[in-house]
């Protein structure tokens, strides 16, 4: 039964990346919708291969505190028999595939930050290097056998650090290094119903993401299920309440953004907190992410086109902190108590996990970008940007009148 459950969860998480393609695709101008979707689909192509060849081994094979090893390259020793370190119930190959969908999704999330202006060839090289040098190590720190954050006792249920903080911070760095879009002020979503469909698929897939992270159907998995949906709903309320107050109008893009903000926020805490805490985490997550997107981005003037940092970076950081506040062993015996349950130590560990992830990811990303820059331009030229990436980089148009 566990294997069937995990197979289904893996399929759900797989669906999130095409979901991101539609979600992001709808939010750009009509001349860039295909190039934006291409970022997601190329991550499915490239990371899938990278993962079975070496990425999974670097993340999950026995190694040191910071990285795995090459022992499981080409899935050597990864077979149908469970690997007890990760799960004694499901096939090791299934665990590997489940983790693969996370690795793919993380790369796709990043692409929201630099949509409408990054050179496609540079993007492909970037994701290969980033996945090996950033994603695999951070996944190893948090979940890997002997990973230092896992040993430290920091909690990250479904990938707050690994997926959301790492993708968000990477997106921010890329947005800053690439610079603002020429027409950033005039760029508005060309098809919000498309973004809505994508957002729904992302939300749907998130159940596999969070519930499946329990790796079995038990009380923790069901707590994660309830918490995930509750936080998403509360995230909508949090985002839209602030938006309605400040801008006088509740928007559809705000509701779907609020849901995603709530989902990101609950991800690290999903299997560790009560439903009351989940509601609060989601509600505040929606409000905080709206603040980041509306105020912080405008103030600091970086052009995070589709708010990869505003939603995933900020939401992930808040979720990591919230785990340190609200986690309780009443929900998960294998977890820990947070500050509000009398254990201030967990919050400290959470802050170490967040801080180290932010610093490592930012520095490694900067180095990768500057190395690529030596060989090829990472940004398209002005003419290409003006005409749109669909036509100039891919030779196709999304819409014909």
């Amino acid at each position, binding site marked *: 039964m566990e294997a069937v459950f995990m197979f289904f969860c893996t399929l759900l998480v797989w669906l999130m990346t095409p979901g991101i393609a539609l979600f992001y695709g709808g939010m750009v101008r009509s001349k860039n919708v295909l190039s934006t979707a291409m970022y997601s689909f190329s991550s499915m192509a490239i990371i899938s291969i990278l993962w079975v060849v070496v990425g999974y081994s670097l993340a999950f094979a026995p190694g040191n505190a910071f990285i795995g090893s090459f022992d499981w390259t080409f899935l050597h020793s990864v077979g149908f028999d469970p690997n007890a370190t990760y799960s004694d119930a499901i096939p090791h190959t299934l665990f590997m595939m489940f983790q693969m969908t996370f690795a793919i999704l993380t790369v796709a999330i990043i692409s929201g930050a630099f949509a409408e202006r990054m050179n496609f060839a540079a993007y492909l090289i970037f994701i290969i290097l980033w996945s090996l040098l950033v994603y695999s190590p951070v996944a190893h720190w948090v979940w890997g056998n002997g990973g230092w954050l896992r040993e430290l006792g920091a909690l990250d249920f479904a990938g707050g650090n690994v997926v959301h903080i790492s993708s968000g911070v990477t997106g921010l760095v890329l947005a800053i290094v690439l610079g603002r879009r020429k027409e950033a002020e005039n760029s508005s979503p060309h098809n919000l119903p498309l973004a809505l469909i994508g957002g729904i698929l992302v939300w749907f897939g998130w159940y596999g993401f969070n519930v499946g992270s329990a790796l079995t159907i038990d009380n923790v998995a069901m707590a994660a299920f309830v918490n995930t949906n509750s936080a998403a709903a509360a995230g909508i309320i949090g985002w839209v309440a602030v938006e309605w107050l400040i*801008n006088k109008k509740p928007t559809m*893009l705000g509701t779907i953004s609020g849901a995603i903000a709530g989902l990101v926020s609950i991800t690290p805490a999903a299997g560790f907190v009560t439903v009351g805490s989940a509601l609060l985490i989601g509600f505040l997550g929606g409000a905080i992410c709206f603040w980041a*997107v509306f105020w912080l981005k405008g103030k600091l003037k970086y052009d995070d086109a589709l708010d990869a940092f505003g939603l995933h970076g900020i939401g992930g950081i808040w979720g990591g902190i919230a785990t340190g506040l609200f986690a309780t062993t009443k929900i998960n015996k294998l977890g820990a108590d947070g500050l509000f349950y009398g254990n201030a130590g967990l919050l400290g560990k959470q802050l170490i996990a967040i801080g180290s992830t932010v610093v490592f990811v930012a520095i490694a990303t900067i180095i990768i970008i500057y190395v690529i820059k030596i060989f090829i331009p990472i940004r398209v030229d002005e003419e290409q940007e003006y005409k749109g990436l669909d036509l100039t980089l891919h030779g196709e148009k999304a819409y014909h009148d």
Partner: protein
Amino acid sequence: MSNLTKIEIITRPNRFYEFQKALAEIGVSGLTVTKALGTGLEKGLIELYRGKKKETNVHERMKIEIVVSTVPVEAVLEVVKNTLRTGEPGDGKVFIYPVAEVIKISTGERGVDALQDHPKEK
């Protein structure tokens, strides 16, 4: 100089069918209609995307072109007044031009004849 006159009306799209009906009653059935965008005195609209404001004062309009000969121009203007005027900014404008010649492509008729709905049987 011919007595052909072109009347070009730029106005809100939402009153178009009422306007077309009233025109038919005074004998005008041939119209050319184009969806148009324009700016004028009407206030702008604000779009909001994740709190990012985009203010635009370009509004959706309809451009209606009519060429008349036997129907008096004043009668058309009366219909315009009765059906399109709200008194608010955004009602639009009417432009009137003399027309040098009209040719009906299917029959080759020229001038006033070219504008008739039913060509004379010959």
